[in-house]
């Protein structure tokens, strides 16, 4: 069969995992090249003594995920600032549809999370951080579910084949790599780092530098126990942001990989068993993918909430040391 032959040429079943991983991971190549960014990367890396071959080379070039970060932050800032400023300046007490969703989250987080875990008085200084984490992660998660860049990739591919666009056209390059910033461990680790700094800062602000570190272990234990408790608590301090990092990235990665694998069933069946099998399996795979996308929407909200909640909990733990 024609379709089977065509697919079979480009696709073999064992390609599927790599295909799925490529669909989640960052682009291997920077999609925008800026000379000053390259030289800046080199300078900073040299300052820290990192060679360009090293795994830890600080490449400040605009990769797919960095571009997506700009994209997500642009959408977050423009949406939220427009809605909130519009809502406040009108002095109408009735929010519109989108604003009422934001207000619902804001009020819920304030009453059930911030006031509950951080405290009625202290919550105001930490609320912007928790809200920003929630909405940034939420928008990152949800925008990752919308296949905008698959579309641009398709346009780019067609344009390239039709010799309308150059080989390295942006539209095609944009389709390379994952669409979900929050599936990148580096991004989630950065946000977790901010959480980490925030809860240490909250403790130091409340108790002073020395007392904050003393709060790490409960007082009044028999002294030999401190040899056990202090290392455990100290490890816990670093495990918290790591857990945040892997939880969010893992959830996002997992969902997207499963989604892609379900879709590749069609190609695999076509390549191995013929076009008819591909057609036969398509409804099954697409309905699975559809169901999973619905589930992913739910996960997107839940993971954003969990990240924000845990940030509030950690800050609260640093402020309210109850021993």
């Amino acid at each position, binding site marked *: 069969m024609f379709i089977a032959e065509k697919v079979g040429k480009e696709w073999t079943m064992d390609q599927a995992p790599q295909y799925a*991983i*490529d669909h*989640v*991971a*960052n682009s*291997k190549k920077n999609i925008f090249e800026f000379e000053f960014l390259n030289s800046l*990367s080199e300078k900073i890396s040299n300052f820290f003594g990192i060679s360009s071959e090293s*795994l*830890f*080379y*600080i*490449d*400040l*070039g605009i*990769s797919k*995920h*960095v571009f997506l*970060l*700009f994209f997500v*932050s642009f959408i*977050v*800032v423009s949406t*939220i*600032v427009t809605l*909130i*400023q519009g*809502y*406040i300046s009108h002095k109408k*007490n009735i929010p519109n549809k989108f604003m009422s969703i934001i*207000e619902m989250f*804001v*009020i819920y987080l*304030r009453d059930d999370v911030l006031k509950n875990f951080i405290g009625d008085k202290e919550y*105001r200084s930490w*609320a*912007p*951080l928790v*809200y*920003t984490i929630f*909405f*940034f992660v939420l928008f990152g998660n949800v925008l990752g579910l919308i296949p905008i860049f698959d579309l641009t990739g398709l346009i780019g591919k067609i344009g390239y084949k039709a010799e309308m666009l150059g080989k390295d056209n942006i539209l095609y390059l944009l389709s390379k790599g994952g669409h979900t*910033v929050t*599936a*990148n*461990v*580096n*991004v989630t*680790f*950065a*946000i977790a*780092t*901010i959480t980490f700094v925030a809860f240490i800062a909250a403790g130091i602000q409340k108790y002073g530098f020395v007392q904050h570190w003393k709060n790490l272990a409960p007082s009044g234990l028999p002294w030999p126990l401190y040899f056990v408790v202090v290392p455990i608590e100290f490890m816990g301090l670093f495990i918290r942001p790591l857990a945040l990092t892997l939880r969010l990235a893992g959830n996002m*990665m997992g969902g997207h990989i499963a989604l892609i694998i379900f879709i590749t069933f069609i190609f695999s069946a076509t390549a191995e068993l013929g076009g008819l099998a591909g057609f036969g399996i398509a409804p099954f795979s697409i309905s699975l993918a559809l169901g999973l996308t619905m589930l992913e929407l739910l996960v997107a909200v839940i993971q954003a909430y969990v990240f924000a909640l845990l940030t509030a909990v950690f800050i609260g733990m640093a402020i309210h040391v109850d021993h």
Partner: protein
Amino acid sequence: MNPLLTPELGTYVWSLVIFMTVLFVLRKYAWNPLLDFLEEREKDIAESLKMAESAKTDLEQIKDESEKILNEAKKEGKAIVGDSKLRAEESAAKILNDAKAKSNEFLDDAKSKIEIEKKRAIKEIKEEVVDLSLELATKVLQRNVKDDDNSKFIKSSLEAVKVDEAKS
């Protein structure tokens, strides 16, 4: 190395920078104004609820007071009506009594006047009778009548006088 777990320090640095910028912008232009706005609105709501509550109690108080006043007015009105009724009755009775006394007085007066008039009339009649008797006597004397005729005449004349007296 698995591409999903590769450290990309560039992406990490960019994430930090972008997130901090977003945090800064949203904090200034979204979260703090929104939280202030919500707080103000909640305060407003709480205040208006309080005001409504106090207005309600005020209204109840006013209602109670007005009812009290109304009741008092009713009582007073009743008292006034009762009082005036009593007074009216009293004055009516007095007027009636006065009238009765006056009429009695008039009656007594009239009676006594009648008595006097009667007495005078009788006196006059008596005088008339005497005059008539005298006249009769003279007539009798001038006329030549028999004795018994004479006595008969005198008798009848006297009877007539008696009848007249009785009639008056």
